[in-house]
């Protein structure tokens, strides 16, 4: 770190002092404003999802099937809006409101794949589809396996 072996003149500020100075001068994220926006956009996406489920149930699907089908439709919508270059604009405004719903999951799959298309379809698109989705699946599936094993030993 600075100051130990440096030939003088040196800047007249210690590491600790600079950390404090930097923290005080760096603008903080506008957490409250971001949270309000996240609430509305996230809530809206879930509201749309709920109406889709309801419509599919009215159309005759069983509730869990309707839920699964809605997930697929939302994934498609998130992917499409990413391709159209719209999803990043929504994300800038809504933050977690567009990242947390499953549409955000679709965005995190399409965005890197789109970007790396110029590096080819196998190592570009193919490999990059799972840059963000990969960790989600790894940790989600691992947790479910651990849950299953614990459940088995508690049951039997």
């Amino acid at each position, binding site marked *: *770190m*600075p100051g130990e072996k440096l030939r003088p003149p*040196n800047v*007249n500020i210690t590491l600790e002092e600079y950390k404090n100075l930097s923290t005080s001068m760096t603008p903080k994220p506008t957490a409250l404003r971001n949270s309000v926006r996240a609430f509305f956009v996230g809530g809206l996406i879930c509201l749309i999802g709920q109406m889709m489920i309801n419509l599919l149930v009215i159309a005759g699907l069983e509730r869990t099937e309707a839920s699964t089908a809605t997930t697929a439709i939302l994934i498609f919508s998130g992917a499409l809006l990413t391709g159209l270059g719209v999803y990043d604009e929504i994300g800038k405004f809504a933050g977690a409101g567009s990242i947390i719903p499953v549409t955000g999951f679709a*965005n*995190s799959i399409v*965005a890197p794949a789109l970007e*790396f298309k110029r590096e080819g379809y196998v190592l570009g698109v193919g490999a990059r589809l799972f840059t963000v989705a990969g960790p989600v699946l790894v940790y989600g599936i691992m947790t479910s396996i651990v849950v299953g094993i614990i459940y088995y030993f508690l049951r039997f």
Partner: protein
Amino acid sequence: MIYKRQGNQTVVFENPPVILSSYSVVGPKEGKGPLGKTFSKVLPDSLNGNKSWEVAESKMLEAAMQGALEQSRLKSDEIDYMLAGDLLNQIISSNFAARTMGLPFIGLYGACSTMALGMAVGSMLIDGGFARNVLVGVSSHHDTAERQYRSPTEQGNQRAMSAQWTVTGAGSLVLAQSGTGPRVTAATIGRVLDFGEKNVNNMGGAMAPAVADTILNHMNDLKRTPADYDLIVSGDLGQVGLMLAKEVLKRSGVETANQFNDCGVMIYDSGQDVHAGGSGCACSAVVFAGDIMQKLNSKQYKRVLLAGSGALHSPTSSLQGESVPGIGHAIVIEA
């Protein structure tokens, strides 16, 4: 052996090299900014008909260098060295541009301080008697930088308020042993300083101490004060970094006033949603090649200190939890 050094880190040129010409190419966002009219060429979009952003960046660098060469009235075989650098891995934009230009090539990496570094090294080559004419150029591109350092461009992430926007552009100039134009009179090569900033969204905070250190040593070496300069301009400290650098300098006994500005702050206006300002190699290059050169030529500025600022991290080092080291290089240009 005559040494042209003064103090600890500064060289003073015996026959100050002349900046014969300068040329800047920028993307549409920069063209819409407050300095839009000072750039030589504004591209219609960030791809400009090329098959990838990387190719577009390399072609921008070529265009800037060809432009500077043409305006200098020199022929290609009168240029002894091409000095170039950019932000991409293996400075690939510069490598491909060098392939086209066909000149003896010295590749440089100083992150966003590469323009100042190139001007310093180029001037040393000329004043040291190793070159008659040198072509210096740097480039950066918002989309190539985003995909290498941060996230894919279509990903819906929110950027931090301290984050900066990489300038899409390329700037170039021709340095010569003789001719008319503003002259590079001195250069101070900086040393790397790391004050522990781990937040890659706060580049200004990471670079400010190093830039302050270079300016401090520059003033000390030449026994000058900020009042001796019409303009002191850093490369891309951004709003946050500029305030930090000013404060660190103040505590070190160097009082700067309104004459200390920053290219990253100058290149965009607040309505362009760039948060803390512009960044990238091209930031200092295009602002210097355009606005500042024009004011030097018209003698509005008589003595300018360009303090390029660079953040010397890599995408891997930040994932490994390392902090971001910074560097600053200072060049004196006189009208």
